[in-house]
């Protein structure tokens, strides 16, 4: 029983990690006021590119980094369209998703069925190994730990540094920020590209750690889940960590319960998505919009018109 719980903790973190990575990037992007609906496509691209690059270079780490860069490059398009050309962010993000998924199938189809060069190394935290449930936190791959640390660092940057202050201010009222002498364009541009890189990282985690290997549709809507996670976490990196792991666990629930459900197990596939809707509805009833709420200028191009 305890082992089951430990296993559950561990897989929740593992499956939550790509969600978290994508969500962290999107938190920064949305905090600066830009909505990026292209996460699903960026993750898909990262996933396929990671396998391809890891095989080509012989190193999964190189694969991961290159996948990251490629996704950032694609996100650059969204940045140009939304920030510089001030086009419609929603449709641009959708276009990005479509392009990303298309690109991923072009890149990945040559590698279907191959295991690629997965990340197999693992870090043991001996101190935790003896504690019953918490030992699930030990023995994860390095990227998972990296993600945890990153979440904390990103939280600190967002709320305790002047860089984070600029980002948050831009998301609330870009005209004020501009009047204070900062460049809204630069800030938004950078956060969007950063978000793209994180999404690429998230995708590469799926194919290099979780799966490993690529097949069409491997991302399976996790990019969209990440968007929901950003909202539940009310745009805070630390809360995103908790929510992402929660969702990771939810996704695993299906496999836990599957043997008891037979065909009905397919229905559980939709569970995370139903949950997103339910929580969105609940959150709106309790709108504490003043402190916790979407950045005011989210989705609105600046300067307007």
């Amino acid at each position, binding site marked *: 029983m305890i082992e089951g719980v430990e296993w559950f903790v561990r897989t929740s973190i593992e499956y939550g990690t790509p969600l978290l990575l994508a969500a962290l990037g999107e938190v920064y992007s949305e905090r600066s006021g830009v909505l990026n609906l292209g996460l699903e496509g960026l993750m898909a691209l990262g996933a396929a590119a990671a396998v391809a690059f890891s095989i080509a270079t012989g190193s999964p780490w190189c694969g991961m980094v290159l996948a990251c860069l490629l996704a950032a490059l694609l996100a650059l398009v969204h940045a140009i369209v939304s920030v510089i050309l001030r086009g419609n962010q929603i449709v641009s993000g959708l276009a990005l998703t479509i392009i990303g998924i298309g690109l991923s199938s072009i890149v990945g189809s040559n590698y279907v069925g191959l295991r690629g060069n997965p990340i197999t190394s693992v870090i043991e935290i001996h101190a935790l190994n003896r504690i019953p449930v918490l030992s699930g936190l030990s023995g994860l791959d390095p990227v998972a730990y990296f993600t945890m640390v990153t979440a904390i660092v990103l939280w600190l940057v967002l709320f305790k540094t*002047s860089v984070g*202050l*600029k980002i*948050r*201010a831009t998301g*609330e*009222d870009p*005209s*004020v*920020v*501009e*009047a*204070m*002498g*900062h460049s809204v364009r630069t800030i938004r541009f950078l956060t969007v590209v950063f978000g793209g890189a994180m999404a690429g990282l998230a995708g590469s985690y799926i194919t290099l750690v979780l799966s490993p290997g690529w097949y069409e549709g491997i991302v399976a809507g996790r990019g969209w889940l990440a968007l929901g996670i950003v909202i539940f976490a009310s745009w805070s990196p630390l809360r995103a960590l908790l929510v992402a792991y929660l969702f990771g666990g939810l996704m695993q629930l299906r496999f836990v319960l599957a043997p008891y459900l037979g065909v009905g197990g397919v229905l559980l596939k939709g569970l995370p998505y139903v949950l997103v809707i339910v929580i969105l509805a609940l959150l709106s009833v309790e709108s504490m919009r*003043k*402190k916790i709420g979407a950045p*005011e200028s989210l989705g609105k191009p600046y300067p307007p*018109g």
Partner: protein
Amino acid sequence: MSILKSQHANGGEYKRIAVEMKGIVKRFPGIVANDNIDLTVYEGEVHGLLGENGAGKTTLMNILYGQLKLDSGEIYLWGERVSSWSPKKALQRGIVMVAQHFRLIPRLTVLENIMLGVIGSGKRISRHQLSVKVKEIEERYGLKVNLDNYVWQLTAGEKQRVELIRALVMDARLIILDEPTTVLTPIESKTLFKILRKLAGEKKTIIFITHKLWEALEACDRITVLRKGRKVGTLDRESASQEVLTHMMFGQAIEDIALYRNSHRKSCESDKAVLSVRDLWVKSDKGYWAVRGVGFEVYRCEVLGIVGIAGNGQEELVEAIVGLRKKERGVIVKDGLDITNLSVRELILRGISYVPEDRLERGVARGLSVAENLALKSYWKPPFARKHLVNWEQIHRHAEVLVGRFQIKAPGVKAPVETLSGGNIQRLILARELTVGPQLLVAHNPTFGLDLKSTIEFHKEILALVERGGSVILVTEELEEALALSNRIAVMFDGMMLGPFKRDEVNRELIGYLMTTGRLPERKKVKLAVPDRSRES
């Protein structure tokens, strides 16, 4: 760096020139906002930039601050020529602008907002150093503020204080204030002027933009008057007077225009109230009571003016009357019918028209044409629509008529409404609201930001409406407007209504007192303006 000397009226003191703007020209499509303007401001003076709305004051200062690019001309700051200007560079040189719409972010704390400005000017400072500096400023100038408050918790006066503190933390040498007293009570304004004096004494240069004559006279050392984009002249305070400045601002002495002289005589006598509001309680967006137990009547053929400092419940009151806000308690009756819970559409059908405060957001729909906007309150009725189908010919024809009658300058009725200027948008809104045959027009700050000509046009229309038997509720922050047009005046203070009083029973001082304190002065007793019941048989 050249130091220019000049004789000052106070006796030959050498003063350094802080700002010199030469031959500034700025054009926008269809208008020359700044037409060859020269401006000289000395260090350590409070310099007033006076002119009516639309004269070009804000444009000029936006150019000085770097937010707008000039078309031609030169700018010298402390003797040095300025080129390729931007707000960032302006901040670095010590120029700070405190604008009409606060440049503050409500969700961040005071400290964070100040920090944002500081890092914008390129300085690096820790939170601790910042609070030390703020303390210094507090002691020196008496500007108090709590650094950990969120900006949304502050009043307008407090927000302005934050902006000033921020300017001083950023070591501003030149502070530009754009219409700072719009959001202040008379007492807060006086305090502000005292602070500005202190700052000027410490060799800070202040430029004070205003359209209010008496403020310029009270607060400024020298005054430059702009009219229609051109500079009319610059005066010392000693040489300036109300008459002289009025002449400079408008090109003629504004007498009591015949228009206003007779406005207090009602064209029809009526005891029956068109609208009757009783014990109205309305909540604000933030959840607290904005309107508290307000009750009053509006009669036919009258203008009821409701004045008060912004934020005392006027907005919520207006929204409640036109059906856009829930009434928690109370009853509104129109012509004997309880309309408290009717929908907006039903109120429109009962003859209630609305000229909103934020014209661009609520008054016109961007993305629709001029004709469509003119039809917004009548599109579902014949002849514009029959059985769910829209008759576009009728709509366009009607629009042409209205455009002609109200002189709305537009490239055609099918043109998108965004191509219209602010004044023309207001004319459009007026045209629409007045021609749906309203019995009651509710107008909220209808002439805000309009130039004099458009303002007078609007007033004419209101008086015409009242003469035809309609009624107007005029909610405004411009005391002069209310005093000129209203048959009765009421004051909103902290959600409660004082009055309404008959116009000839009050004057500006009394109303000002009511606006500031919320109660009557002990000595004077004023009758509430209710109809004389003794006439009832």
